[in-house]
């Protein structure tokens, strides 16, 4: 078993390359369930919060889940306490985690985004911000991330508000994610992350009616991996800033494919549902593979293999 090597992501030192996908690991709930063991063997090298919004949200009506061939559709709908609740209750607890904290935010207007970014970046506990421009579960979630112009305008407006690194999370439900990624870079984003879930739907086999309470949802898991690899490859070829690749990663092998596609770091999402420690396993396996390939170029090295 090979040691994970540290990297630097947007100037933030990380002990390895594996993050969680936003919304796929609730460190506070997991601590309630698993106790301090969670902190002692924390599976990720940085922790990304569930996406928060300005106002509190209940999320979508159930059912919210549907299993597909090698995948999962979810229609969670961004339940969260809202900015104030997050800062008051969640942030202090997330600050106890043994790894840097990334806070994911989504705004339904540029003003909302401004308020979110200002308030979150004031807090020392926060290492980076992720702008979720892509959640397919909320009606307006698409607007910014599917369009290069919208994305550029939003990032330009937010960029001056914080000195903390800004990660833009792209939506895969777009004609040209690479163009959107390039626009984000041009406007000052420090990193890009992708993919978010693909829009998807399922029908109740008994009634023939849509299964999900919210009718449509987002697909994740191994089923989307090939799509994610293509988008990461296309985006990484267009930008110089680091890319955080995700979508169906189950193993270090899968993660190595994302590195080969041009990702500097990776995130594990749905696989954590099958195995709460998946992030740690993926990290170990990935480190071993990269070492084998001689691609680890010391701390801070953003190894781009292959192609």
């Amino acid at each position, binding site marked *: 078993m090979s040691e994970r090597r540290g990297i630097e992501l947007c100037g933030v030192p990380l002990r390895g390359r594996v993050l969680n996908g936003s919304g796929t690991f609730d460190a506070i709930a997991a601590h309630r369930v698993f106790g301090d063991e969670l902190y002692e063997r924390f599976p990720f090298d940085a922790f990304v919060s569930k996406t928060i919004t300005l106002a509190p949200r209940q999320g979508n009506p159930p059912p919210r889940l549907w299993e597909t061939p090698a995948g999962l559709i979810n229609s969670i709908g961004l339940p969260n306490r809202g900015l104030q609740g997050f800062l008051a209750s969640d942030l202090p607890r997330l600050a106890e985690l043994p790894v840097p904290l990334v806070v994911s935010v989504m705004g339904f207007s540029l003003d909302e985004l401004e308020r979110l970014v200002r308030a979150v970046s004031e807090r020392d506990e926060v290492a980076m911000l992720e702008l979720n421009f892509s959640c397919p579960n909320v009606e307006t979630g698409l607007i910014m991330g599917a369009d290069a112009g919208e994305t550029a305008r939003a990032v330009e407006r937010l960029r001056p508000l914080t000195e903390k690194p800004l990660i833009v999370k792209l939506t895969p439900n777009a004609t040209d994610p690479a163009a959107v990624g390039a626009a984000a870079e041009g406007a000052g984003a420090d990193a890009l992350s992708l993919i978010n879930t693909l829009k998807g739907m399922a029908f109740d086999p008994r*009634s023939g009616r849509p299964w999900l309470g919210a009718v449509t949802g987002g697909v994740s898991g*191994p089923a989307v991996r090939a799509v994610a690899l293509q988008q990461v490859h296309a985006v990484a070829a267009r930008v110089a800033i680091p890319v955080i690749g995700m979508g169906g990663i189950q193993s270090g092998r899968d993660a190595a494919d994302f590195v080969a596609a041009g990702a500097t770091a990776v995130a594990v999402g749905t696989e954590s549902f099958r195995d709460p420690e998946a992030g740690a396993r993926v990290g170990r396996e990935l480190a071993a593979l990269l070492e084998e390939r001689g691609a680890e170029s010391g701390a801070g090295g953003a190894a781009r293999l292959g192609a």
Partner: protein
Amino acid sequence: MSGARRTRAPFGRRRAIVAEARDLGAYRLVTALDTGGPQDPRPGQFYMLAAAERWGAGEGERPYLPRALSFARARRSGEGVLLDFLLEVVGPGTERLAQLAPGEGLWLTGPLGVGFDCEPSGTPLLVGGGIGAAPILALQDELGEAIAALLGFRSAAHAEAASLFAEAEVCTEDGSAGRRALVTELVRERLDRDGDRTVYACGPPAMLEAVRALCAERDVRAQLALEAGMACGYGACFGCVVPARSGYVRLCVDGPVLDASELTDAGVPEAGR
């Protein structure tokens, strides 16, 4: 008898071994030897299970995610604990679990969730409907044999699960075993006789809602073990919510046992069920 409603799970999933597996009428009883977890899960808690081999099997490429199962009985065995799971085959996941043979590996995470509050006010009344009998068995083990369980089943084949109980009164929908009745009728009769009780129930949504309404009417305390589709079982996905008075609650971390007073409707079925 202890007040705790939750025994903490070790972090991560671990490999358990199938010690025994047999049919029990229409159900399947699978016993796993778990040497990596606590020996004292609490009645009503559950585990996330996946076969170590051939999970992802079949033409339809499911099951993919682990499946939630209440333990029906826990017995210490050396360093470990023998966990009985009572299974109803309803789809690819339960089918694969029902195929497990002794010696096969099983991924296990748990115990998870919040179990029953085992400090009843008044006499406990145990109620199980169908496969919902599983956690009720664990509860009877905990509360002591003197407490009979009221169990309702579809048919005699299902009612064989009652043989696991120290004491049970059985009814079936078709009268093929025990009384021909819905278990809620039995509950109503008991409450008519003695209302100073805590009702503990697990079963299908319609039954749970009938029990909830019955108890609400009479101001009887009720602890209900609900079900919802789950992806993770440990609060990560926010997928397993049910509507409660306080808003949506995640059944895997705030339940699966909820106090009836937290609910306005315990009969929230998944779409189309």
